[in-house]
Every structure is written in C-alpha cells, then in structure tokens.
C-alpha cells in the first residue's frame, strides 16, 4: 500500500499574494478527500502545487516515497498521480480514443495495458465507446468530464486529483460522476482528492474533507462531521 499524500507547511505565492499560506494536510489512502472552500481559497493552487505546475516557496510535499517539490510536471504521473484538470482539460483537437491513449502513453507496459485500459474505460462510460473515433470537441460537457476521468484512469493511478469536476454540469450528471468516483475508491482502492466549490455534492461522497480559507486550512476531518457542523457550513461552505 502506498503512503499517503502529505503536505507540510506549504506556501505558494503569486507575487505578494499567498495563495497557500502554510498548508499541512495528509490525504488518507483509499479514501475520497474533498477540498472545499470559496473562490480564491487556494483549492486549485493546492492541486497545481501538488502536481508541480506551480512551485511552492516553502514546505514539503511527498507521495509514496517521492518528493514532489521540484519534480518535473511530466514525471508526476509516473509516481501514480493522475490529474483531471479544471475545465475538463480534454484536448479537443484529438479524438476521444487518442485522448484516452495519451493517458496511458507514459507507461512502459503500454502495449499490454492500453487495450485493456480502453476496454475498461469504455465499459465504465458507454457514451465514450460510441464516439471513440470522433473528435473530442463533439462531446457534451458531461461526456468531456467522463473522458477526462477515463483518460486519468488510463495511467492506472493510485491517486487521482480532480479539479471542480462538477463545474458547469447538470446535477444529474454531477451525481453520476460522484457515484463513479465513489465506486472507484471502494472497488479499486483509488485515493481521490476532490476539489469542489459545490460542497454539498462533494461531501455526499467524500470520506474526509479539508476546508480552505484564504490559503489556510480552517477545518479538517470526517466528511459527515463537517457536513453536520452548521457554523462551519454557514461560514465557509455556503449551505
């Protein structure tokens, strides 16, 4: 079993603005951790710092024995961390299947794993199977989200980072996506970090949750308990 994703005293600044101001947290293995907070709380910066797109000015980030601070972005996926970027991040100029293949392309065993991976993803998301040869810009918002998640799964990750997967999706589609994540975590032991503005739907599937406000962790714990804490909900989560 891999060791958990651990952040210790991470500071990430854009110029004078500290988007993350000494964040320390540990993501339990095999569970879904929701990262919640308002706009500008530092949620997206947290993910971008973990995968190396932005460099923290202080602190350490480790996962599975790897030091993530300063690791090249294109290496991070090889440590078992898959990222589902905000705004889907589907490459619209490529076909559905090309997007999926791309997800598993770094794997040394890709000759073996790609075909199996494609079958699994198509079985999980039948709409993608129907459009495998079509360009990804013909997909609907929900289908793009499926594609982005499917593509992340192609790398056979142990940890999946999702940035606002519910953004712009119909509630029914959001519920489907959340159910898929829950199933992946329960059946395959996948660790999921779910960054969400939509706190209600995120807490409905998450095991634990972290609440960020202005770059600091203000609450951390069992998802059910946080959802029950009325003061916290009103102050930071808006429901």
């Amino acid at each position: 079993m891999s060791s958990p994703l651990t952040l210790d005293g991470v500071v990430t600044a854009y110029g004078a603005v500290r988007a993350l101001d000494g964040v320390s947290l540990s993501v339990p293995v095999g569970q879904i951790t929701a990262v919640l907070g308002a706009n500008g709380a530092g949620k997206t910066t947290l993910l971008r710092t973990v995968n190396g797109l932005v460099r923290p000015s202080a602190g350490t980030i480790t996962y599975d024995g790897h030091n993530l601070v300063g690791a090249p972005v294109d290496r991070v996926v090889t440590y078992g961390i898959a990222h589902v970027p905000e705004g889907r991040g589907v490459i619209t100029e490529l076909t559905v299947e090309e997007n999926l293949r791309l997800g598993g392309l770094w794997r040394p065993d890709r000759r073996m794993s790609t075909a199996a991976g494609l079958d699994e993803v198509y079985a999980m998301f039948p709409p993608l199977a129907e459009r495998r040869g079509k360009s990804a810009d013909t997909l609907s918002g929900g289908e793009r989200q499926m594609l982005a998640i499917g593509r992340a799964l192609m790398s056979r990750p142990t940890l999946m980072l999702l940035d606002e997967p519910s953004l712009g999706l119909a509630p029914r589609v959001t519920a489907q996506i959340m159910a898929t994540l829950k199933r992946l975590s329960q059946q395959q032991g996948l660790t999921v970090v779910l960054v969400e503005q939509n706190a209600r739907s995120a807490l409905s599937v998450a095991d634990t949750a972290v609440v960020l406000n202005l770059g600091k962790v203000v609450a951390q714990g069992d998802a059910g308990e946080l959802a029950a804490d009325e003061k916290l909900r009103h102050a930071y989560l808006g429901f």
Partner: protein
Amino acid sequence: MNFLNDVIYGAANGFIYAAVALALVLIWRSTRIVNFAQGGMVMVTTFVAWDLVVEHNQSYWVGLVVAMLAGLVLGGAVERILIRPVENGPPLNPVIVALGLLLVLEGGAGMIWGNNNNTFPAQFSLVYYHAGHQVILFNSDLLFVVISVVVIALLLYLLFQRTPIGLRMRAAAFNPEVARLLGVPVSRLLTLGWALAAVVGAVAGVLIAGIPGNYVSPNGFDGLLILGFTAAVIGGLDSPIGAVVGGLLLGIVLQVLDGYVSNDIDSMFVLLLLLAVLMVRPNGLFTRHQERRV
C-alpha cells in the same frame, strides 16, 4: 513549352514548395511560431551538401544524407538555444530572433562559402518521351523530387497520426499544460519538432538546388521561403495536407504563368496571392475552423 510540360515542371517545383511549407507547418503546429529563418537554415544545409558533392567529390546521396543530419542538429540547436528563451514572451520576440538568425546564417555562409552563385549537379539526366507528335521533356530529377516529397509527406503523416511519439507531439502542440500533466515531455518534443522541420527543409534545399536554373548562394533561398510560406498559408498553416496541395497549386500556376505570360510577374503574383488568401480565407483552404471552448 507546351501546357503539359508546364504542368509537370510546375508540379515538381510545387512539391518543393510543399516541402518548405511542410517544414513551416511542422514548427507552426508545435510552437505557434512562423520560422522566418527557415530559408536560411535550408541554405546552410544545402551548402553543406554542395560542399561535399562539388568541393569534395562525394556522391549526391552522401551530400543529401549529411545535409539532413546537419538539419537535424541545426533545427534542434536553434530551438534549444535561441527560441526556448523567447518562447513564452510576446509573439513578436521569436519572429525578431528568427529574422536575426536569418541574417547571421546568410552572413556566415557568405564568409565560409563565398557569395557566389554555385551550381549543384543534377542527379539524373533528361529523358524524352514521344506522345504522338508531342515531345514531352521529362527529367528524372523531377520524378525524384515528386517521389521524395510524397514520401516525406507520407512519413510525416504516419508519424503524427499513427505513432505514440506523433500523438505526444500533437498533444504537446495543442495543449502543452495538459500534455505535461499526462506525462508528455513537452519541451523535448518541441526540440524534436524543430529538428524534423529542418530535416524536411534540408531535403527541399538539395532538391531545388539540383533543378537546372537554380543556384546555391547565401541569399539564394529567400524566394523559396516566400513561396513555401505562401503555400503553407494557402493550406492554412496548420495542415500538412494543405501544405502539399498549396505547394502544388502554387508551383503549377507559376509555371503556367511563366509559359504563357512572363516570368517577370512571378514574385508579384505570389505576393498578390498571399494577400488575397489572407484577406478572403485567413484560415486557409484546408483548416476546419475550430472554436475552442474555454
């Protein structure tokens, strides 16, 4: 000259313009930069071939292969050393750097090889075919040109569409950040893109130098860049197939104009055509207009 000969000659020339256009398209696709130094890079690699073949009596094929290798190194080095530092700046910076490089390459070539018009030996000889009462001049060099460029275009197509490295290159070009998150070493692929483009350019240079009436000289390839650029723009700058078709069209039309009007109007016609395409169909004839959703 009869019409058929014009078309054959024009098509052969067109395939060379297509090769230059392909080189431009390769770089445009991967870095969104128009490489205005392409003509200079082609000139240098062609001089390398000329030096070997004419000055050192090596075979045509040795010259061609060494020119391609020189292109590989030159293209990669230019991207790493000159383009990399300005890549993320304003779009004008790489253009200025490329123009500066062009001047340096032309000046440097003049210092090393001199500012003369050098002839490059043709690899094959003329063949005549009789079709009824018509004599069709057929130069095997032209056939060689056509085959070479078709093979290059085909190889590039296969590379981009059928291989993992091609898929990575396309991903890196379309969405570098997402590509990196998926484990694609984007910066290495950009270097590869420039290197490949210079190899294609090197082939185009050796091919065009071998056609009678063309010379190898430090400024001798300026016109070729304009022709290749026009061909690429006709094709939409983004489409390898468009580049080939654009080159062919341009080659045939220019040759027919030469034959029936005058070859004095070539340059003016090319620039007018470029202007017309940019005004009427700025996306080219072959680019499907694609909106990116944000």
